[in-house]
């Protein structure tokens, strides 16, 4: 009886610590059923832990401009795939292929980002459970039909 209670308590306490290995998973914030492809001009960059962000102005067919926030992994994770601070600058035009946030805001997880120098870089977090999270340089985007 006592042992059982202790076990139950131990499980209850340990349960609170389980998500500690990942900052947050792909599925916690982004919707795999809402792939997006955006082309726009960079307006702001946050080279920041635990997630980087950059913001782009996207102009639609009617000429309306919408500012999108593109979330990426930590500066360390990007540096390891040769994407350094300064590779992207305000005013650059980039292409972002990724997935929209579940909360409906103009936020997307940039799974593959085409930089101004033509490099296509994986902009997700390896192992976050999102599409193509094997961390390959190109990024693998099965749901958008754009993988090579």
């Amino acid at each position, binding site marked *: 009886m006592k042992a059982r209670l*202790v076990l139950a308590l131990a499980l209850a306490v340990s349960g609170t*610590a389980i998500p500690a290995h990942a900052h947050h998973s792909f599925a916690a914030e982004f919707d795999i059923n809402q792939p997006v492809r955006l082309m726009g001009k960079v307006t702001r960059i946050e080279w920041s*832990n635990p997630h980087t962000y950059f913001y782009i102005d996207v102009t639609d067919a009617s000429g309306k401009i919408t500012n999108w926030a593109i979330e990426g992994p*930590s*500066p*360390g994770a990007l540096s390891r795939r040769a994407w350094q601070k300064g590779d992207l600058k305000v005013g650059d035009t980039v292409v972002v292929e990724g997935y929209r946030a579940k909360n409906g805001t103009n936020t997307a997880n940039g799974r593959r980002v085409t930089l101004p120098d033509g490099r296509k870089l994986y902009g997700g977090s390896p192992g976050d459970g999102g599409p193509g999270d094997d961390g390959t340089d190109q990024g693998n985007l099965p749901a958008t039909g754009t993988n090579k």
Partner: protein
Amino acid sequence: MPFLQHFCDVLYQSNFGTMLRESNNAFSVIESVHVLSITLLVGTIAVLDLRMLGLILRSVSVSRLARSVLPLSWSGFAVSVASGFLLFWAEAAKMYINPSFRAKLVLLVLAGFNALVFHTTIYRRAQEWGTLQVCPMRARVNAIASLTLWSGVIIAGRAIAYF
């Protein structure tokens, strides 16, 4: 701009805060230190709480157990506050508006108040009841409050990343 928000902005814009925020490795190392120190802090507190509830180490008196674990709790507390402040420094302007961070601070204050009540009232007379296998009601209530509040602090802290 409210004073606290201004303070958070100054920290966020500072060279040191920016260096931590933009670092390749420092931020994640500090995160690990923060988690390890929390395990020391909350782990040792939980041992004392479980003893007061009569679930473990019934043959050891509460005073004796407290004397051996509390220095570890304080060490864990010191390191977790220091590492936590560095993490806050790196992201201060974002933390100011993060609802989960605010909840964590409130829970921390409540957990601290609960510990204060324990040390200034209940624990003062531990010589009288500390050898009982199951401790008096107010010690047990304090132990359950402590386990609940510290769990809440950890849950809210973990949830900061999701807002």
